[in-house]
């Protein structure tokens, strides 16, 4: 029991740390592309510590607080289910659909909290976030369906294992299509251009996040960090082969090697997202919806149909 808790704590800490690193990397790489120097990679950590140590915080009601807590809690919960090398705790129950759902729940919590503040910017932000989520469901659904049909199982862990034997998912055509669609969906899930309509900084003042400050913002940052980690990890696991290293005799070295390989794959995904986001401007929400319901849907649907044959 204690071992399990310890493992969970370690996973959370690792995820938080790496997540903040990712946030820092995003800022640094974006800056470099824009020919600036950019803040140091550990900047997000400093920012979050600053947020959490503010002397005063405001709230707009119980839901306002609870929503944030719930969002972070749900993200942590999602993290528990994704296979992280040999370390994950609940990977036997890591069902594709369960994880997809759990990754969407934090958004629900944030929206509850944002809406309860009564700020109209938050309201518009919530509306756009919801519609974005609605838009991405279709290609996302088809991609998941393609995966499940191709491998005949829903367990993420078994998919990782299968990829060890048959090669990465993206080497198979139907799953390549699914991966392309899912990657486009990831763009929206990260909240990066061209699908950052929900935050739309400069237009609606960060949308749902506008009212949050102090420790609420701090918790949100942690949530974003873990969320980034979890989403990239999930993608790496299902499409890029995950990592199960058994070459070393020592289990700790195995674990470190697994985590390292996963880190590299996650970075690849992240960098791809950053590159795309720096080039594109923002879609409006109806453009975004129309876009998602056209090409990514077609690609993902094709992938699903091909996978089911």
């Amino acid at each position, binding site marked *: 029991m204690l071992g399990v808790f310890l493992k969970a704590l370690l996973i959370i800490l690792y995820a938080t740390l790496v997540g903040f690193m990712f946030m820092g990397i995003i800022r640094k790489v974006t800056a470099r592309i824009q020919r600036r120097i950019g803040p140091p990679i550990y900047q997000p950590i400093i920012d979050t510590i600053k947020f959490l140590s*503010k002397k005063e915080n405001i709230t707009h009601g119980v839901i306002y607080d609870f929503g944030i807590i719930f969002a972070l809690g749900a993200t942590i919960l999602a993290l528990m289910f994704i296979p992280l090398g040999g370390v994950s705790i609940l990977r036997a129950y890591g069902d594709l659909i369960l994880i997809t759902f759990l990754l969407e729940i934090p958004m629900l919590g944030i929206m509850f909290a944002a809406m309860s503040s*009564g700020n109209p910017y*938050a309201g518009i932000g919530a509306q756009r976030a919801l519609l974005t989520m609605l838009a991405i469901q279709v290609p996302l659904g088809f991609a998941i369906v393609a995966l499940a049909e191709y491998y005949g199982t829903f367990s993420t862990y078994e998919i990782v294992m299968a990829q060890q034997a048959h090669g990465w998912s993206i080497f198979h055509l139907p799953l390549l299509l699914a991966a392309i669609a899912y990657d486009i969906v990831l763009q929206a899930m990260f909240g990066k251009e061209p699908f950052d309509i929900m935050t739309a900084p400069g237009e609606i003042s960060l949308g749902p996040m506008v009212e949050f400050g102090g420790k609420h913002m701090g918790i949100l940052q942690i949530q974003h960090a873990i969320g980034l980690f979890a989403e990239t990890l999930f993608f790496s696991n299902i499409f890029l082969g995950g990592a199960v290293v058994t070459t070393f005799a020592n289990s700790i070295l195995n674990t470190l090697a697994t985590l390292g390989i996963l880190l590299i794959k996650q970075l690849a995904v992240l960098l791809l997202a950053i590159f795309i986001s720096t080039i594109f401007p923002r879609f409006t929400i109806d453009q975004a919806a129309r876009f998602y319901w056209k090409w990514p849907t077609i690609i993902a649907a094709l992938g699903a149909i091909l996978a089911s044959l």
Partner: protein
Amino acid sequence: MNELPIIVISPLVAGFLAWLLRIRGVREIIGVAGSLIPLALLIKLYPSLGERLEFTINVAGFKLGLMLSHLTWVFSMIAAVVGFTAILGMISTARDNWEWLFALMSLTGVLGVFMAYDLITFFIAWEIMTFASFMMVLKYNRHASLKYFILSIVGAYAMLIAIGLIYAKTGTLTFPEVSVAFTQDAMRRMMGGSGLFTKTETMLIYGLFLLAFGVKAGMFPLHVWAPDAYSETNQSYTAMFSGVLSKAGVYGFILLYILMYGKLVVEFGHFRSAPTFGYIIAFLGGLTIIVGGILAALQEDIRKLFAYSSISQIGYILVGLGVGTALSIEAAIYHAISHALFKGLFFLIVATLIYRTGKTEFKDFGGLAEKMPYTFAMAFIAILSLAGIPPLVGFASKWLIFEAVIHENLPILGGMVFFGSAIGFVYLIRFTYAVWFGQRPSDLEGTKDAPLPLAIAMGILGALNVVFGVAPGIVAQELNKIFDKPVIAGNIWELDLGFGRYNGLLLTIWMVIGVLIAAIVYFLGANVRRVPVTDTYQSGNPITMEYNLTIRRNFFLPLREVMAFWLKISFDRLYHDIWKSIEDFAETARNYVYNGNVQAYAWYLAIILVILAAMGV
């Protein structure tokens, strides 16, 4: 067993008594007793479900029967539980005696439908149910009720024709005998011979039943009556209307499987891995999910939003039924149960809201979470359940349907189902934002929380939502008994399908842990200070409470713009136009035929004589 007719008849008798005795306190007690008796008897009969429980009676040449098996027990329990809570709700919201009579009459009807043993009992109960629910709507809105009644009657008569055809060909009406007749027919066809029913006749019977059950279940494109009918009636009753009566349609589809499965498979074959006739049902179900969901998101009236949401959820059940494997049918029944639970809860909440505030449109609501905390807590549970968020029962059933559908390699259906869950999020947030959060209009300042009967009713349904969510195996094991084999393995906390697992308890525990960790981080920070809703970031604009700060109207305008093309297609208008043309035709026909001119009438006689002559010679 003699309890069976008591289960079915007692609500009607109670309703009749409640209508006769117009004393306020007494009629409520009689009404609640009338809905409690079936529930109590059903629970009492549960242990003896292993033996066949039957009751037959000969009425005017027909042998009518009632039967209680695992399947019918499950459905009857849905009816009894949700019916009971709805009647409890009606204590607060019912306005006059008629409503008691007809609400209880419809409960009788639906119990009769579920427990029917032969086609005539089924039809009689079906008609009683339709008539009673129609009368509940008639008072509020004539147009909506007539639309409902006509569509339902068309469906019911389609069923009557199908029953008549079956009776004409097989000479029998009881379920077991009809099922045997069809199976024998299927085997004869498989051997290469010709059966009792030709292919066209089978297709006809299938189509007629599809029409009948589709109307009641609210399947696209026969769903047009549901939004109006669900909105324009006593909202406590809608908990039963939408939660239970639509399940009668679902039960009808299951009956189709029980009676005619072999025959339909032999006649129409398979499409991919699902039987063709089932795929049609599933595909229409998928369309129902999408259409219902998108229209729900665009509504401005709270009752209509949930009406469309009901339609959308029934789509899920139909998808599960259509796929046709034991697992998918179990998933569908599971979703029927969970839908009855959370949709019933939602309509009771709506009833409370309307009862306390008197408003029905989103633009009049706002900021009620503080004034009605208990109702809000219930709404929170219901929202999580409908959105399919673990660990509530909505997630368990949706997960089962996903798994069952995708496992059968049906990608299009899988995509539709996925889309449906997202759209659920969408309209629920709309509901939450407009009603519970944000700025409160000044005329809602004095709103009180739910009255006691409604609170009890909501509490019952809410508790069931949570219990069945954390321990989904309880329901799964019951459902397994229907099929007599462990289709869904695992214990009461866990659902194990072999290719996917879900453990409710484990998830709950870890979610609590996660939230605890987050809470710890939260409390590490400084204390919070409450600020009013006017103290938000407004880019420097000073604002007061007179400004409307919440987007309550037309929340999903961008969605409406994106879907503008598809929204122009409206089956409602189509049916309306068809009916109008029938009426106009009737008027024209009457003016031609019965034109008041006696010479014309004399000519009619002459024409008939000519026809007679032509026939004879």
